[in-house]
C-alpha cells in the first residue's frame, strides 16, 4: 500500500485492530513459553544454595533434608535420570530411524499407488495413538514378551561378553531400560516415517529419471541419489523424533521401573527418566524436592530446545539443497 494511492478512513478502519489482534496471538504464545521457562527456572532456584549445578547433573541419589540449624542439605543427583533419558531415546532412535526411513522410502518409491495411501494412513494412525494406550499395551503385552525373547536371548548369548547386556537369567526384571527404549522406538517410528516421507517426496524427480535413464536399478537409484540428496532432511527427521522420545513420559514410566538412585549396571535392569521422575515424584515432594524436579524440568527443556534449534537449521539446509539441485 505505497505510492500515490490514498485511503480514506473508512477503508482503513479495522486494519489496525485486526493487526493488533493477530500480533496479540503471537505475543500470548511467546508469553506463555516465556512464563513456562521463567516459572520452572524460578522454582529451581531454591535448590542451588544447597547444591551446585555440576553436582546436581553428575551425581546419583535422590533425597533432601533440613538439618537442626535449619540449613538445607540436599543430595539430588539427576545423573540416573539424565542417563536413562538419553539411553532410552538412543535405543529408540537406533531402532526407529532405519525402520521409519525405509518405510518412508517404500511409501514414496516402491509401493503400488493403490497401497501407498492406506499404508500412509495406517502409519499416521499409529502416530495418533495416545501414549498412555501404547504404555498400557507395553506394560501388559510387550514387556513380558521382550523379557522372555530378545532380552533373554541377548543376555544368554553375548551377555557374559558385554557386561551391560547381561542379566541374571534366574531373576529377570519386570521392568528395564531396554524395554523402555523399544517402546519409544514404536512410538516414534511413525513420526520418523511421516517426516522422512515429506523429505523424500521433495527430492527432485529429474534426479531419479537421470539414474533410471542410465540403467540403474531401483536400489541404486535409492542409494546413489535419493539417500544422498535427502540425507540432511532424513537426519533432521530422526533428530526430531529423538526430541519427542526425550520428552515422553507415561509410556516410559510404565515400563522403565523408576530406579532413581543409581545408573543400572545393565540395560536389562530398571532405570529412570527425567520426565517419568517428574510425573512420579511431584505428589509427595517437599519444597526442596520440588526445586530439584524443576531443575530436572529445566534440563529437559534445554535438551529439547537444542534439538528443536538443530532440527530447524537442518530442515532449512535440506530445503535449500533440494532447491539447488532441482
Amino acid at each position: 500500500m505505497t505510492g500515490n494511492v490514498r485511503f480514506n478512513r473508512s477503508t482503513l478502519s479495522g486494519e489496525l485492530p485486526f493487526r493488533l489482534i493477530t500480533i496479540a496471538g503471537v505475543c500470548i504464545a511467546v508469553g506463555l513459553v516465556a512464563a513456562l521457562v521463567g516459572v520452572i527456572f524460578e522454582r529451581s532456584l531454591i535448590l542451588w544454595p544447597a547444591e551446585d549445578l555440576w553436582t546436581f547433573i553428575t551425581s546419583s541419589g535422590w533425597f533432601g533434608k533440613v538439618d537442626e540449624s535449619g540449613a538445607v542439605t540436599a543430595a539430588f543427583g539427576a545423573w540416573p535420570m539424565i542417563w536413562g533419558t538419553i539411553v532410552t531415546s538412543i535405543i529408540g532412535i537406533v531402532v526407529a530411524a532405519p525402520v521409519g526411513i525405509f518405510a518412508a522410502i517404500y511409501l514414496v518409491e516402491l509401493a503400488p499407488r493403490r497401497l501407498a495411501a492406506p499404508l500412509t494412513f495406517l502409519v499416521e494412525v499409529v502416530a495418533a495413538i495416545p501414549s498412555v494406550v501404547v504404555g498400557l499395551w507395553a506394560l501388559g503385552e510387550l514387556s513380558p514378551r521382550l523379557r522372555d525373547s530378545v532380552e533373554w536371548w541377548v543376555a544368554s548369548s553375548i551377555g557374559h561378553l558385554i557386561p551391560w547386556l547381561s542379566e541374571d537369567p534366574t531373576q529377570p526384571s519386570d521392568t528395564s531400560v531396554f524395554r523402555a527404549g523399544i517402546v519409544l522406538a514404536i512410538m516414534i517410528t511413525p513420526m520418523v516415517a511421516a517426516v522422512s516421507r515429506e523429505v523424500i517426496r521433495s527430492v527432485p524427480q529429474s534426479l531419479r529419471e537421470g539414474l533410471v535413464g542410465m540403467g540403474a536399478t531401483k536400489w541404486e537409484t535409492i542409494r546413489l541419489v535419493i539417500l544422498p540428496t535427502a540425507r540432511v532432511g532424513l537426519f533432521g527427521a530422526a533428530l526430531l523424533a529423538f526430541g519427542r522420545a526425550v520428552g515422553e513420559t507415561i509410556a516410559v514410566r510404565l515400563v522403565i521401573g523408576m530406579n532413581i538412585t543409581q545408573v543400572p549396571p545393565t540395560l536389562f535392569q530398571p532405570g529412570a527418566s527425567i520426565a517419568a521422575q517428574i510425573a512420579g515424584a511431584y505428589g509427595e515432594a517437599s519444597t526442596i524436592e520440588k526445586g530439584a524436579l524443576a531443575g530436572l524440568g529445566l534440563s529437559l527443556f534445554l535438551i529439547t530446545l537444542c534439538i528443536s534449534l538443530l532440527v530447524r537449521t537442518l530442515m532449512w539446509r535440506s530445503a535449500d539443497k533440494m532447491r539447488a539441485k532441482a
Partner: protein
Amino acid sequence: MSRAEKTPTLIDFSLTPHDIRRRRVNQIMLGVIQTMAILAVVPLVAIFIVILSKGLPSLSVSYLLNAPLAEPRGIINAIQGSLVMTGIAIVASAPIGIAGGIYLNEYASERVSRLGELFIDIMLGIPSILAGLFVYFAIVPLLGHSGWAGSVALTVLMIPVVMRTTQEVIRLVPAGLREASLALGVPQWKTTVFVTCRTALSGIMTGIVLAISRGLGETAPLLLTSQSSNDTAINLGQPMSAMTVVIYQNATSSDPQIVASAWTTALVLFVLAFLLNVLVRFRTVNNRVV
C-alpha cells in the same frame, strides 16, 4: 542388409556377472525395505487386536454412562472431564493459534516470519510434562488441582499445533487471490479474513481437529494439574478425571477387573483418536487447499 539375416550385435546384451550381482543386490535391498515397511505397521495391528480383544468384553452402554463408583462401574466422569477440559482448551487455543499464524504469514517481515517458524518448532517440541509442571507451579497453588488447571496445561500444548497448521495452509493460498481482492479495493484485513482464511478454512479446521486429538491423548500434564476425581458433576474448580489419567491409574492396579477396565477405556479413547484422524484425512483429501 535384410532383417532376417543374423548379424553379430555390436552390444552384448547378455548379463555379465557384475549385472547379475547388481540385480541380486537390488532384489535383496527391496526386500529389506518392504520388511521395514511391514515392521512399521505391525505395532498398530498388534495394539489394535489386543485393545479390541481385552477392551470389548466389558464395553457397554452402562460402562460409558455410569459413575465410577456405581454398579456396574462406568467412566462417565472421565469422558466428561476429557471433553470439557479439551473443549475449554480448544476454545482458548484456536483463536490464539489462528491469529498468530495469520500474523506470521500475512504481516510479519521475512525475518520475523522465519523466527516465528523457529518459535513454533520450539513450542511444539516442549515435552508435555513441562506444560504440566509449569501449571503445577504457577496455577495449582492458586486454584488447586482443578479442571481449570488442566485446561490451561492443554492450552499451552494445543496453541502451537493450531498455529503451525494455520501458517502452513495460509501460505498455500495463491497470491493471485489476495491481489484480486486488494485490487478491488478490499482492505487488507478483510482480504485476509474473507479471502485468504476463507480459502484455507478446511486446512485451519484440520489444525483444530489435530489439536483436539492431541488434547484428548495427553496424560502427563493432566496428572500434575487436574488429577482425578470420582465426582460426576462437572465442576471446573475441583479435580477432574480424564480418560488418559484413568487408564494410567488403572493400568498398574493389581485387581484384574480394574486392569480390564483400563483396556476398555483405552478402546474408547483409541476409537475417538481414530475417528478424529479419519475426519482430518477425509477433510484434507476432499477439500485440498486450492
